[in-house]
C-alpha cells in the first residue's frame, strides 16, 4: 500500500431505522416493469406532431424565409416562424423560483428570423397530422442565407476585429478573485510552476432524447407534459408565449437522464407555441441526432495555472487565468464560469490568490449546465498542476497536497469559511488504499496509479436566495403522502424525501407515496440541479414531516400520559421508549387527531442561507452553502506502443455527510465516476467550424459495460452537511475528480503528463515522443 490510511475523527451518528438503508427506491419497480410513462410515451387524442426546422449554417444572415409551401401541404396544421412570434424570447439565465434579476443581453430568440449564430439554431416550427407529414413540411421550407464571418475559437473571439456574435462584444461574463498579494507570494516561492490545460466539451448523452406533449386544458391553461429538470420554467415560458404565469402548467415526467442537459428549456417552449397556435395537443420527440444539435454541451476551457511553492510543497501564490467557450448564446455560462472561478485553486489553503476568468461567445454549439457545472474543468487543471508541482519538487503527490489541503475553519479563495468536515487526506488515502498493490509493468505495457482530490459545492449560489417546499401528510390508514415539485432524474430525488418522511413518521417506506414535479399541483421545490434536491427539498420534507410528527406525539402524549420526549414513532406505531410494549397504532392515533381537528399535514418551506453577492472586484464573499469533499483513485495500464489505455482499478471515496439511501449514494458515486472516466479517456465531441462531427452515439462514444472496471465506492459519513441528518450532496461531486485521477495515473505510468483530455491513444504516443 502506497499511503498510510488517515484515521477518521470520532463521529457519533445514531443508527436510524429507514435513513441510511439501501432500500428499494420508490421509483424502481415501475421502471423495471415498464409502467413508468416517460415524456415520449404519452399521447393525447387528436394529437399533432411537432418538428423544428434548424439552421444548417453556423453564422449567417437570413435573407429569405419562405414557409408558404410547407403551410400549404395537406396535413400541416401550422408553421410558425420568428416573424409570427416576435416577442418569443427566452431569458437564457439561471431559471427558477427566486425571481433574480435578468442579465442584460442574455435573452435568446426562440426562433431566429434575422441571423443564425450556430449550426442547428431553430428557425421554424411545424405541427402536422403525422411525423411523416411534419418531416415533409420541413423539407418544403425555403431559406436563403448570406454567410457571415464566424468565430470558432474563443482566443480569436477575444481579439480586436473578431466577428461579433452578439453586440456589443464577445465577452459574455467575467469573474475575478483577489485575495492577499500574489506578487509577494511569488517572491516567497522557491519554485514557480506554470502550465496550460485544455478541457473539452462533453455531451450529456442521456438515454432519453428530449420529448413532451402539450395541450390546452379545460381551464385554458397550456399544459406541458415534459421531461425537464426545472418545472419552474413555466414562468419564462409564459413570458415567451405571452400568457399569464398561471396559465402555463408543467407536468414533469420521470426524466430519462438529465445531467444538466434538461436544465435549460428544451422543447417545452416549442410545444407551448404549437399548442397555442393550433389549439390541439402536440407531441414532439427529438431524434438522437437532433438532441445532439439542440441542447447545450459542457464548456471547453483553457486554464492557465501559475503557482508559487516552497520546497516542502506549501503554496505561496496561485495565479489562474481561465477562458470558457460559451458558444453562440450565454445560457448559464456566467454561472458556470463563477463555479469554475470559485473552485479554481482547488481544495487548498492559499493566502495569495488571483483568478481572472472570462467566458467568450463564439459560433460554436452553445454551452451550459452539465453535472459539475464548471467544477470538473477546474479540478482537472488544479490536480494536474498539483501533480506537476510534486514532480518538479521531487515530492510525493500526497505530500504536496497534505501541506495545502483545506481544513474545517479555513477560508476558501473567496473568503468563505469551511464549516463542515473537509476530509481530503482521509478520502485520498482510502481511495488509493482501495487500489491495493500496483500491478507490475509487462512488455510494452506500463502501469500507473494516481488520484485526484476535489471540493465541489452543493446547493445553489447563496445570493440567489434559494427555497424549496414540501408537503407531508398522514392519511387515516396510516400511510403517508408527500407532495413536492422535485423533478426526479433517477438519482433518488423523490425517494430520499420518502425515506426521510418514513424515518420521521415511523412508517415503513412502502407506506409512503410521493407526488412530484407538477408546477400547479405540487408545492414548488426548485430545480433538480446544483446537487440541491436532497439538501433543499430533503430539509423541507424533514421540516414538514417533523411538524406532523409533533402533532402525533402531542396527541400520543395525552394518550400515554407521558412526556413527548419519552415517546417515539416506529413501525407504524407510537410507543413509550422505556417500555416499547406499550404502543398505539398510527391508524388509531391518526383517527384521534382527525376527529379532534388536529392538522395531519404540513407544508414547509426551507430557505438556504441568503447572502449578498460577492464583491465584483475581489470576488470576496460567500458563494455557496457548503462543499462536498472527496478523492478518486485510478490504476491504468498504458500500451506504450499503441497508446491504448486500460483502466485496471478505480475507487472513489467521498464524504457524503450522511447517506440517506446507501445504494442510491453508491449509484451516484459509481455512475458519476464513470461519466468522469468517459470524459477523461473516451468522450470526444469533435466540432469544426461550429459543426459537430460526432453527431450521434455511433461517433460520440460513451462508456459501455466493457470499458471500465467496477468503481469501488467508499462512503464516508461525517454527519456535518447542511442537508437532512447531516447529508451533503453527491450527485455532481461524484463526477468531478475522475478524469484528473485517470490523467494522474497515466502520467504516473508514463512519466510524462498530458495537459489535455480526452487522453486518446494518439495523444499518448505524441506525449511519449515529446518525452
Amino acid at each position, binding site marked *: 500500500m502506497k499511503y498510510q490510511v488517515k484515521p477518521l475523527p470520532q463521529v457519533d451518528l445514531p443508527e436510524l431505522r429507514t435513513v441510511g438503508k439501501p432500500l428499494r427506491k420508490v421509483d424502481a419497480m415501475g421502471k423495471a416493469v415498464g409502467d413508468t410513462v416517460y415524456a415520449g410515451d404519452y399521447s393525447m387524442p387528436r394529437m399533432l406532431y411537432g418538428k423544428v426546422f434548424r439552421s444548417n449554417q453556423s453564422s449567417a444572415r437570413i435573407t429569405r424565409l419562405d414557409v408558404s409551401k410547407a403551410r400549404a401541404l395537406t396535413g400541416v396544421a401550422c408553421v410558425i416562424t420568428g416573424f409570427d412570434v416576435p416577442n418569443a424570447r427566452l431569458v437564457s439565465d439561471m431559471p427558477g423560483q427566486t425571481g433574480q434579476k435578468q442579465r442584460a443581453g442574455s435573452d435568446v430568440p426562440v426562433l431566429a428570423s434575422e441571423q443564425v449564430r450556430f449550426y442547428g439554431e431553430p428557425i421554424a416550427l411545424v405541427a402536422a397530422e403525422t411525423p411523416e407529414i411534419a418531416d415533409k413540411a420541413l423539407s418544403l421550407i425555403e431559406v436563403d442565407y448570406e454567410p457571415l464571418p464566424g468565430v470558432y475559437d474563443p482566443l480569436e473571439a477575444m481579439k480586436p476585429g473578431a466577428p461579433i456574435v452578439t453586440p456589443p462584444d464577445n465577452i459574455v461574463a467575467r469573474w475575478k478573485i483577489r485575495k492577499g498579494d500574489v506578487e509577494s507570494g511569488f517572491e516567497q516561492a522557491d519554485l514557480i510552476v506554470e502550465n496550460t490545460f485544455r478541457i473539452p466539451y462533453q455531451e450529456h448523452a442521456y438515454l432519453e432524447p428530449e420529448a413532451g406533449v402539450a395541450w390546452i386544458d379545460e381551464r385554458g391553461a397550456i399544459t406541458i407534459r415534459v421531461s425537464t429538470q426545472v418545472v419552474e420554467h413555466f414562468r419564462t415560458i409564459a413570458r415567451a408565449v405571452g400568457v399569464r404565469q398561471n396559465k402555463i402548467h408543467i407536468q414533469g415526467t420521470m426524466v430519462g437522464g438529465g445531467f444538466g442537459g434538461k436544465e435549460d428549456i428544451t422543447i417545452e417552449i416549442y410545444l407551448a407555441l404549437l399548442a397555442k397556435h393550433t389549439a390541439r395537443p402536440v407531441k414532439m420527440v427529438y431524434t438522437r441526432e437532433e438532441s445532439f444539435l439542440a441542447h447545450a454541451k459542457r464548456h471547453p476551457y483553457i486554464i492557465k495555472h501559475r503557482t508559487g511553492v516552497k520546497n516542502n510543497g506549501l503554496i505561496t501564490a496561485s495565479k489562474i487565468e481561465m477562458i470558457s467557450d460559451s458558444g453562440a448564446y450565454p445560457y448559464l455560462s456566467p454561472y458556470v464560469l463563477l463555479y469554475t472561478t470559485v473552485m479554481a485553486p482547488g481544495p487548498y489553503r492559499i493566502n495569495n490568490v488571483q483568478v481572472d476568468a472570462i467566458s467568450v461567445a463564439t459560433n460554436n454549439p452553445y454551452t451550459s449546465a452539465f453535472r459539475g457545472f464548471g467544477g470538473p474543468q477546474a479540478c482537472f487543471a488544479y490536480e494536474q498542476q498539483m501533480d506537476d508541482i510534486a514532480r518538479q519538487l521531487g515530492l510525493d503527490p500526497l505530500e504536496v497536497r497534505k501541506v495545502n489541503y483545506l481544513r474545517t475553519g479555513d477560508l476558501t479563495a473567496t473568503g468563505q469559511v469551511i464549516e463542515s468536515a473537509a476530509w481530503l487526506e482521509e478520502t485520498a488515502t482510502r481511495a488509493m488504499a482501495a487500489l491495493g498493490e500496483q500491478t507490475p509493468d509487462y512488455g510494452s505495457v506500463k502501469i500507473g496509479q494516481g488520484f485526484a482530490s476535489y471540493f465541489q459545492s452543493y446547493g445553489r449560489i447563496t445570493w440567489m436566495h434559494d427555497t424549496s417546499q414540501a408537503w407531508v401528510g398522514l392519511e387515516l390508514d396510516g400511510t403517508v403522502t408527500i407532495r413536492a415539485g422535485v423533478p426526479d432524474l433517477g438519482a433518488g430525488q423523490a425517494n430520499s424525501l420518502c425515506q426521510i418522511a418514513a424515518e420521521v413518521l415511523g412508517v415503513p417506506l412502502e407506506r409512503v407515496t410521493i407526488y412530484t414535479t407538477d408546477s400547479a399541483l405540487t408545492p414548488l421545490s426548485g430545480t433538480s440541479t446544483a446537487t440541491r434536491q436532497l439538501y433543499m427539498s430533503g430539509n423541507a420534507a424533514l421540516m414538514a414531516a417533523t411538524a406532523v410528527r409533533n402533532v402525533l406525539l402531542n396527541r400520543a402524549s395525552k394518550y400515554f400520559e407521558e412526556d413527548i420526549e419519552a415517546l417515539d414513532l416506529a413501525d407504524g406505531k407510537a410507543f413509550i421508549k422505556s417500555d416499547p410494549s406499550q404502543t398505539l397504532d398510527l391508524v388509531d392515533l391518526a383517527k384521534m387527531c382527525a376527529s379532534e381537528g388536529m392538522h395531519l399535514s404540513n407544508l414547509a418551506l426551507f430557505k438556504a442561507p441568503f447572502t449578498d453577492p460577492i464583491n465584483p472586484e475581489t470576488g470576496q464573499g460567500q458563494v455557496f452553502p457548503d462543499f462536498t469533499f472527496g478523492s478518486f483513485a485510478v490504476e491504468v495500464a498504458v500500451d506504450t506502443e499503441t497508446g491504448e489505455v486500460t483502466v485496471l482499478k478505480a475507487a472513489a471515496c467521498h464524504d457524503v455527510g450522511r447517506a440517506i439511501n446507501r445504494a442510491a449514494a453508491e449509484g451516484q458515486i459509481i455512475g458519476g465516476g464513470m461519466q468522469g472516466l468517459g470524459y477523461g479517456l473516451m468522450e470526444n465531441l469533435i466540432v469544426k467550424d461550429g459543426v459537430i462531427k460526432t453527431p450521434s452515439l455511433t461517433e460520440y462514444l460513451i462508456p459501455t459495460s466493457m*470499458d471500465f472496471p467496477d468503481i469501488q465506492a467508499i462512503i464516508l459519513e461525517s454527519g456535518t452537511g447542511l442537508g437532512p441528518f447531516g447529508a451533503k450532496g453527491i450527485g455532481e461531486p461524484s463526477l468531478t475528480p475522475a478524469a484528473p485521477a485517470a490523467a494522474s495515473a497515466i502520467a504516473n505510468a508514463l512519466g510524462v503528463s498530458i495537459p489535455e483530455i480526452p487522453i486518446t491513444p494518439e495523444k499518448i504516443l505524441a506525449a511519449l515522443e515529446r518525452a
Partner: protein
Amino acid sequence: MQSEIELHHPKNLAEALNLLAHYGPDGKLLAGGTNMVVELRDGHYNGKSLVDLSRLKELRGISKQDGYIVIGGGTTITELIDHPLIGAHAGVLKEAACLFANPLVRNRATVAGNLVDASPAADTAPPLLALNAEVQLMSQAATRWVKLEDFITGVRRTVLQPGELMVALRWPVPSARSAGAYTKVGLRKADAISVLSAAVMMTLDNTGVCVQTSIALGAVSPKPYRAHEAEALLIGKVLNTALITEAARLAAESTRPIDDIRGTAAYRKRVVAITVRRLLTKAAEVLK
C-alpha cells in the same frame, strides 16, 4: 426523412432470385438490416424494392464439406460465435465475431450483409480474407464463386451484380499446423467501429518453416485487403523477431489510410506495424 420503399418477403431462395431479377438495379437486398434499416431511416433508398432475406432458411447453416467450411450468407454473427466448427477451424473469425458491434446487433447482422456492405472497416472481412475465403454469388441465371479478395473492390463497392446475392461462403479447413490471431483497435472496448483491424493465419511445417501465411488488414485502405508483400517475405523461412518485424513494416507500408474522426492516417500506419508484429509473433508462439 425515411425512404419510400416497397418491401418483399420471398418465401424461398428461388423467389428471392426471381424478385431480384425482376427489379434489377432497383432491387436492394435486406438481410439482418443492421446497416440497411438505418440507411432507410436516413432516406438513402427512395423508390427501391427491398427483398427481405432475413427469413430464408437456405441462407443459414454452417457445415464442413469436402475440405471446406461452408457457411450460408445469412448466417448471423452470433451463430458464428456459437458454432463449434467455427471455434475449431476458424478461431480468427470467432475472435472477430466476438468483437463485432454488440450482442443485439450480432443476433441480426449477417456475414454476407457485412461483406456486401463493403465498409473498409467491415469486421468479418480481415479474418475471412486471412482464411482465403471465397463467396458464392447466385443469380437466376448463374452461380459463381469469387475470391473474397476480389469481391470487395473499393469503399462500399463490390463485384455483386444486380440480380445477384451472396448465398454462401467457404474456406479450406486450415491445416492442423496452422494458427490465427486477430486484433481490433477501437476507441472503446466494445461496440466500436475499428480504427484498424488485422487478422493473420500462419502454417508452419514440422521443421518450423513457414509454408503459408496471410495477413489481412481492415480500416487502413479503401477496402479490407491482404498484405501480400509482407506475406511473401515469410514464406519458406523459419520465423524470427527480425523477420516478423520486417514483415510488419512491409504490411504497414502497404496501407493507404485516411484521417477521420476515429484516428489519423499516421496513427493507423504506425499501429498496423505493431499489431501485425504482435499477431505474427502470437501465431508463431502457438505453433511452437
